[in-house]
Each structure stands twice: as structure tokens, then as C-alpha cells.
């Protein structure tokens, strides 16, 4: 693996060394390393490109890393990864994709991740996107995440895309059974002419299921973002979506709330706030000795933390 690939790995998965636990590192469409463990089995799919990751019931405190790095210009790939998370397990899954495109052709990675979360299982899923490289070719990421949650399972998803991705369309679909709980924290920053679209479709099918989808984002320069979050409540359940955004320069943000209650005991709630950085926040930090630009940076860093 070369230096650029190592740097991308650090950005998307905080990996400095070979990770502990199970992992599969994909570099320029090839597997650059894989390890299964006693409880976590990673196997290649036969029909399409991608992995099947099977986590044994009762697996506790183990992690799976499946980072993807691309450094060849003009590469386009679609990858299908399926996760089967056994009953009662408690695991951390770290995905992420880093693209470095120095060439003039677009590089694109479309990852389709499906999670089958067993009864009572707990999953923390972290996905980071990062792009770099000065080439004219775009860095494009279109992740699709499907989550099927059985009874009393919990899934916490943290999705981060702060830098360098030109075009992204993220689709997240989730179906929750009785007592299942989904928490999503999305953080997004777009620059230049970048475009980012994030769509959620969450179905609360089971009694006492809940979803909390929160997006914090910053749109700078002439970038555009769309946050389209839909929650459907089909049982006594609770759902909350929130879009909290800062716009700068000529950035544009469109927040589309979507709540559908199909049951009288469904309780659904949506919040959206879009605006520039509050002037008094800048002023306060300037009275502490920061310049306006430094103050802006602190406010945005905090906001996206």
C-alpha cells in the first residue's frame, strides 16, 4: 500500500496500523488485506463484488473495519456488502471510503450496505467519506444503506463527510421491528461546487420502536445540500428528525421534512433550522482575542464535532 492510500485510511477509519479484530481493506477494487476472527467471518461474494460479513450471536465488544480507498483516476465500482449481526451481539463496524483523484476522469464508489440486525443486538456503525486530489475528475460517492432491525435491537449510525467529495447521493432505508431503536448522526460539510443529497426513509413497523435522525451540516461557497428525511410510524412508536444547518457564502440547503403517521399512537417530530453563523457568536469569540476567520473556524469545528 502506498503513502496516499495510507493517508486515506487514516482519514476514513483512523487506521494507523493493521486494525484489531476483523477487517477487510479494499484498495483500487482489490482486497489489500483481510482477517476473519473466531466470531466474525468475512467472505467474498461470488455473484457480485462485495462481502458477506457474519457476526455470531452473542459476540461482544468486537469490531469490524471495512475501509475502501481509491487512488486511480477513472475507477468506477459498485460494491455490495451484507452484514448479518447475530442475536444479542454488541459490535462496532467501521466503514468509510477515501478517494484521491489526481486525474481528469471521475472516480466513483457506490457502496450498497445491508444490515440484518438480530434480536437484541447492538451495533455502532461509523462511516466516513473523504476526498482529496487536485485533478479535474470528480470524486463521487453514492452510498446506499439498508437496515433491517429485529426485535429490541439497537443501531447507532455516525456518518461523516467533511472534505473533498464532489458529488454524493446517500440513501438510507430502515425498517424497525418491536422495540428496535435507530439513532443516526450525520455531519456534512460541502465546499466549492459540491453537491450532497441525503435521503432517509425509516419505517417504524413495530410497537415501541424509535428513530432519531439528526443531521448537522455546513454549506460553503456555491455548494448545495438536500436533506430529505421521511419517517413512517405504523405502530405506537416515536420518531424525530432534525436538520440543523449553517450556510455560508452562496451555499444552498434544502430541508424536506416528511412524517407519516399511520397509527394513532405514533408520535413523530421534525425540526429544521438553516441560517448563517450568528453574529453574536463571532463577536463573543472575537472578544476572546480571535480574528473573525478564526472565530468562524472554531464555531464550525464545534458545530460539526
Amino acid at each position: 500500500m502506498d503513502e496516499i492510500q495510507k493517508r486515506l485510511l487514516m482519514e476514513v477509519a483512523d487506521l494507523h496500523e493493521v486494525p484489531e479484530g476483523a477487517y477487510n481493506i479494499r484498495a483500487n477494487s482489490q482486497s489489500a488485506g483481510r482477517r476473519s476472527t473466531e466470531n466474525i467471518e468475512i467472505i467474498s461474494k461470488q455473484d457480485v463484488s462485495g462481502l458477506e460479513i457474519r457476526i455470531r450471536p452473542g459476540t461482544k465488544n468486537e469490531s469490524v473495519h471495512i475501509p475502501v480507498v481509491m487512488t486511480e483516476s477513472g475507477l468506477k465500482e459498485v460494491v455490495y456488502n451484507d452484514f448479518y449481526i447475530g442475536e444479542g451481539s454488541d459490535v462496532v463496524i467501521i466503514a468509510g471510503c477515501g478517494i484521491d483523484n489526481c486525474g481528469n476522469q471521475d472516480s466513483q464508489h457506490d457502496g450498497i450496505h445491508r444490515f440484518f440486525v438480530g434480536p437484541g443486538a447492538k451495533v455502532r456503525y461509523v462511516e466516513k467519506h473523504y476526498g482529496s486530489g487536485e485533478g479535474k475528475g470528480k470524486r463521487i460517492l453514492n452510498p446506499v444503506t439498508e437496515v433491517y432491525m429485529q426485535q429490541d435491537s439497537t443501531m447507532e449510525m455516525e456518518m461523516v463527510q467533511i472534505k473533498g467529495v464532489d458529488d454524493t447521493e446517500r440513501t438510507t432505508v430502515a425498517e424497525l421491528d418491536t422495540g428496535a431503536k435507530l439513532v443516526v448522526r450525520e455531519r456534512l460539510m460541502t465546499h466549492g461546487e459540491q453537491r450532497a443529497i441525503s435521503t432517509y426513509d425509516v419505517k417504524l413497523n413495530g410497537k415501541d420502536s424509535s428513530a432519531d435522525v439528526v443531521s448537522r451540516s455546513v454549506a460553503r461557497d456555491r455548494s448545495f445540500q438536500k436533506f430529505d428525511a421521511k419517517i413512517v410510524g405504523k405502530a405506537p412508536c416515536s420518531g424525530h428528525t432534525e436538520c440543523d444547518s449553517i450556510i455560508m457564502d452562496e451555499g444552498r440547503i434544502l430541508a424536506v421534512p416528511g412524517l407519516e403517521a399511520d397509527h394513532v399512537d405514533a408520535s413523530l417530530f421534525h425540526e429544521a433550522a438553516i441560517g448563517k453563523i450568528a453574529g453574536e457568536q463571532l463577536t463573543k469569540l472575537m472578544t476572546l482575542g480571535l480574528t473573525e476567520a478564526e472565530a468562524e473556524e472554531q464555531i464550525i469545528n464545534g458545530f460539526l464535532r
Partner: protein
Amino acid sequence: MLELKNVSFQVAEEGTDKEIVRGISLKVPEKKLIVVTGPNGGGKSTLARLIAGIEKPTAGKIFFGGEDITEKSVTERARMGIAYAFQQPVRFKGIRVVDLIRIAAGKKVTAAEACDYLSAVGLCARDYVDREVNASLSGGELKRIEIATVLARKAKLSVFDEPEAGIDLWSFRNLIDVFRNMRETIADSSILVISHQERILNIADEIIVIKDGRVEKQGSREEIYPSLGADSAEAPACDRLLKTMKDGMEDA
């Protein structure tokens, strides 16, 4: 150290000019604690904002350490040694108490040092350092964090705008200790406190009364304090009673 010469501040409101500060001249010498008092709406906070550079005077000049700072920015004044605790502190999403203290100190601050500033304002440091300075904090907590950040600045001139507003469960004695401590530890430093509180007026070297954008009275505590009685008699009787009771409880 600080001198205002004939400072005015005027805003345009509904087509007409409104003068909020009208030709105020005052001096804050070194090593003094000055208390600015006077009725609500008199222009005290505007005066503080003019000193910090958040507002620019429409007439007059401001000097700091002998230098004309009238045209200096908020950042420049902060770096020259002016600190300002807002009357209404600002909330931030994602910025933690420890981050604000670090920014205020302008250097790396150890967790232990950050905790000292918080303890000084009566906050249990462990519970607060990692808290976000956001809507989850009560007004009183926020006010005290604001004071802690000004402490961390170790500025030559610290301006506090009605600091007593947040000291519900804390006490005046502690606030007064904070002021005393600042004066002892920051060489030649001065403090300007905007306050209505008798106990704070009581520790003033000088008192300035601002009313309708003008300096109504100015002088040593001994001169001014006795004459303030007449003003406070205008306050509704129950307010005064409540205040006496509160003060009594803190003494207990």
C-alpha cells in the same frame, strides 16, 4: 488606563436618530474597581460594548494605555488586554466549556487549570468542563461560565456586565473574592463592573451613575454611595424586601 472622551453613540431608528450614549467622558485608572450603575435602559451595556469595540462611537475618542483605540477592532482590543463578560452570554452548539476557556486563555490550558477557573465561579469543574456551551445550560450556569472565561483572559481591564444575575446558588462573597483575586494576581489591572447590587457598590473605589446616556454622578464610593439611596427608594417595596431576604440567606 482607559479613558473615554466625549463618547456618543447614535442609532437610526424609524427614520429618526436616537442617541443612546450622549457625550460620556470617564477614566478608569490602574488598580481600581469602578462600578457603573443607574436605571435600566440608561446605556450601561452600550457603554461596555463601545469599550470592547463591538459598537463604534459616532463621536468622541477612546484611549487605552494612552493609545487611541477608537478605530481598533474587537480582536485588536481583546489582544491589547480588554476583556468583556456579556450581560447576555452567547450559546454555541458543540463548543465545550473547556474549549471556550482555552480560547480565552489564548494558549494551552491543562484540564486542572480550566477546572480552577470553574471552581472560582462556584461550578463543580468535573461536571462542567466537557459540557457544551449550549441551550442545555441554565442562565445562571452560563453567566458563571462567562465570568470564568474572563478570568482566563487575565486582562488588564475586565468589564463585567451585571455579573450578579447568575449567582443564584452561589454567593456575592464568592463573586467579590473573584474580583479581589483578579486585582491581586493581574499586575496593575482594573475592573469595571456594571451592577445594581449594593454589595458590589460597596467594594467600589469609584461609582459612576449613568442615566439617559449621560454620566449623572461620578466620584468615590464615599461621595456617591449615600446619594444612591434616593434612587433605590423608587424601586417597588417588595423588590427591596425580597432582596434583603435573599442577601440575608446568603449571609447565613
